[in-house]
C-alpha cells in the first residue's frame, strides 16, 4: 500500500492537477451533450461517434498535410455540424412517424440512434482501419512547469481552449436572446412555443451546435488520448458518468465542471493503480454503479 510520504504527496498532487486539466476538456463534451439532451429530451447516443469523426478529421489533416492540430478545429467543427445536420434531418422523420403510431415512447428514436452509431462506427473502421491513433504535434511532449506541477503544452493548450469555449457558452446562454430562448425550451417546450419561440428551429440549432462542439472536443482530446474507431462509446460512457454525477443538467456549467473533475480523477487513479486491461472495465463499472445509485441523476435533478 502506498504511504503518504512527501514524494507520494507530490505524486498525488500531480494526479489532482492533471485531473483538473482532463476534467476541463471533458466538461466541454458533457456540456454539449447535456444541452442536446435538454432540448431533445433524449440522450444523444451517437455523440461519442460524432466526437470520433471530429478526431479523425483533425488526425488526417495533421498526419497527411502537417496542419497544426489547433488550426484543424474549424474544419472538424464544420464537418460535425454537417453530420449532426444530417442526423437531425432524418430524426425529424422518425419522431413525426412515431407520433403517428400508437407508441408514444421514444423507442424508435433510440433504435434510430443505435443505427446511426453503428453506421458511423463501421464507416470509420472501413475508412481508417482499427489501428489506435493519436495526434502528436512536435510541441506535444514539451513540459510546461507551473510551480511544482508539470503539464505538457498540448494538454495545457487544450485546457485553455475548452475553458474558453465554456465561457463563450456561458455568455451565450445567459446574456443573449437566443440563449434565453433555448433555456426556456429546456424548461418547458410547450410554454416556450406559446410565448412565440420557434421550438423546432431552436432544437435543430442546438442539436447541430452540440454535435459541432463534440467534433471540436474530439480534435482536442486527440492530443490527450489515443483513439480507435470504437473509443467513441467508451468516451460516451465517461461523459454520461459526468452527466449523471453532475445532476443531469440541473446544476449548470459549474456543476458539470466539478462532475468532470471527479470523474477524471477516478479515471486517472484507476489508470495509475489498475492493470491496463481492467481500466475499461472500471469506466463501465463506474457508469453502471452511478446509474444504479442515482437513476435520476445525483441529487435527483430533473431529466
Amino acid at each position, binding site marked *: 500500500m502506498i504511504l503518504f510520504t512527501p514524494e507520494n504527496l507530490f505524486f498525488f498532487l500531480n494526479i489532482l492537477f492533471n485531473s483538473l486539466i482532463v476534467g476541463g476538456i471533458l466538461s466541454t463534451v458533457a456540456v454539449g451533450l447535456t444541452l442536446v439532451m435538454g432540448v431533445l429530451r433524449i440522450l444523444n447516443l451517437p455523440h461519442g461517434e460524432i466526437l470520433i469523426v471530429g478526431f479523425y478529421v483533425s488526425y488526417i489533416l495533421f498526419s497527411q498535410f502537417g496542419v497544426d492540430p489547433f488550426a484543424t478545429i474549424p474544419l472538424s467543427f464544420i464537418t460535425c455540424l454537417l453530420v449532426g445536420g444530417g442526423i437531425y434531418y432524418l430524426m425529424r422523420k422518425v419522431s413525426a412517424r412515431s407520433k403517428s403510431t400508437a407508441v408514444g*415512447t421514444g423507442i424508435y428514436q433510440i*433504435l*434510430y440512434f443505435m*443505427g446511426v452509431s*453503428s*453506421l458511423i462506427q463501421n464507416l470509420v473502421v472501413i475508412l481508417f482501419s482499427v489501428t489506435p491513433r493519436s495526434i502528436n504535434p512536435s510541441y506535444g511532449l514539451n513540459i510546461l512547469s507551473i510551480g511544482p506541477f508539470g503539464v505538457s503544452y498540448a494538454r495545457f493548450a487544450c485546457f485553455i481552449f475548452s475553458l474558453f469555449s465554456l465561457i463563450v457558452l456561458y455568455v451565450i446562454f445567459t446574456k443573449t436572446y437566443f440563449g434565453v430562448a433555448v433555456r426556456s425550451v429546456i424548461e418547458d417546450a410547450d410554454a416556450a412555443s406559446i410565448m412565440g419561440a420557434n421550438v423546432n428551429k431552436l432544437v435543430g440549432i442546438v442539436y447541430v451546435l452540440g454535435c459541432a462542439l463534440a467534433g471540436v472536443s474530439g480534435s482536442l482530446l486527440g492530443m490527450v488520448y489515443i483513439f480507435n474507431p470504437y473509443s467513441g462509446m467508451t468516451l460516451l*460512457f465517461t461523459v454520461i458518468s459526468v452527466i449523471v454525477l453532475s445532476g443531469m443538467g440541473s446544476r449548470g456549467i459549474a456543476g458539470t465542471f466539478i462532475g468532470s473533475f471527479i470523474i477524471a480523477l477516478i479515471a486517472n487513479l484507476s489508470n495509475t493503480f489498475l492493470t491496463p486491461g481492467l481500466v475499461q472495465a472500471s469506466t463501465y463499472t463506474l457508469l453502471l454503479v452511478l446509474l444504479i445509485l442515482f437513476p435520476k441523476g445525483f441529487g435527483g435533478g430533473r431529466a
Partner: protein
Amino acid sequence: MQVKNILLLFLAVLLLVPVFLSHAPYYFRIIIMLLFYIALSQAWNIVGGLARQPFIGVAGFLGFGAYMTILLAKLLLLPPILTMWIGGVCSLALAVIISPILKLRADFLAIGSLTIPGILYSITYNSEILGSCNGIAINPDILYSLPLFYYLGLILTGVLCYIFYRLQKSDFGLRLAAIGCDQDLAEATGISVFSAKFMAFLLTAFFTGILGGFYGYLMLAALPDDVYNLFWGIQLLLICVIGGIGTVYGPIIGGAIFFLASHFIQITFVELHKLFLGIFLIMVVVFFPEGIIGIDWKKIFSKLKG
C-alpha cells in the same frame, strides 16, 4: 379444420427437414442458425417488444450463458446439453443482480445495458481461467450432431413463440404492454411497473442464457470477441423492428428476412457487412417503423394500380 391440416403439414415438414438436409451440412447449419436467431429475438421481444424497454446489452446474458456452459462442461466433464440449462440459471442470477438498471428511463437504460457485456468482456479478457483472449473450447461429445441441434433449436423456438403468444393474451402481458405504451400512465393506473418489468427481464435473461449455451455448444467454444460483441444487440433490434416489434410473428418474419439478407451480404461484401446493417436499421426505422406487418399493403397496391 383446413387451418389445422395446414399447420400439421407444416409441422411434419419442419420435423422432416433433417432427412432432406443430412447430406448438405452447410445449409443445415444455416437453418439451425436461423432458428437460433428467431429464438433469441423472440426472447428479447418479451422485454424489448412487449414492455418496450430498449435493453440492448443482451450480449451480456448470451455470453455469460455460453461461458458458463462451456466452463462447466470442461471442468466438471458434464455433457454441454445439461450445462446449457445451468447457463440459463446463471444468466438469471446475473439478471437479478443488475435488475436495478430497470428503474432508468429508456435512453439511459439503453446506454446502461451496454455496460454489462463491456464489463464482462473486460473481466473475461483478463482472466486466466476463462482463457483470456482465446476463450475456452471443448471437444465434441457423442451427442454432438446437427439433427440434435436442429430439434433442440426447434423446441426452443417453439417454446419461446408459445410463451410469447400466451404472454400477449395474459393479464401480465397486458400490463407489460401498458408499460410499453406509457410508463407513467401505467403506474398511475395501479400497475406495479418495476415488478412487471423485472419478471419480463428475468424471462428474457433466462432464455437468452440457455440460447447462449446452445450457441456455445454448437460452436464448441466461447470466444470473448464473439459472444460479448455489442453487435448482438443491434442485430436483435433489427430483426424485431423488421418483422414488427412486439408481435409474435415479428421475430419469425424478421429473423428469416434479416438472417438470409445478412448471410448474403456477409459472403458477398465481407468488410461492408456491419455498415449495411447500420444503414438497414436507419432505413427501417425511418420508413417502416412498424415493420413488415405494419405496412399498409392495400394502400401501396392501390397506389400502384393508379
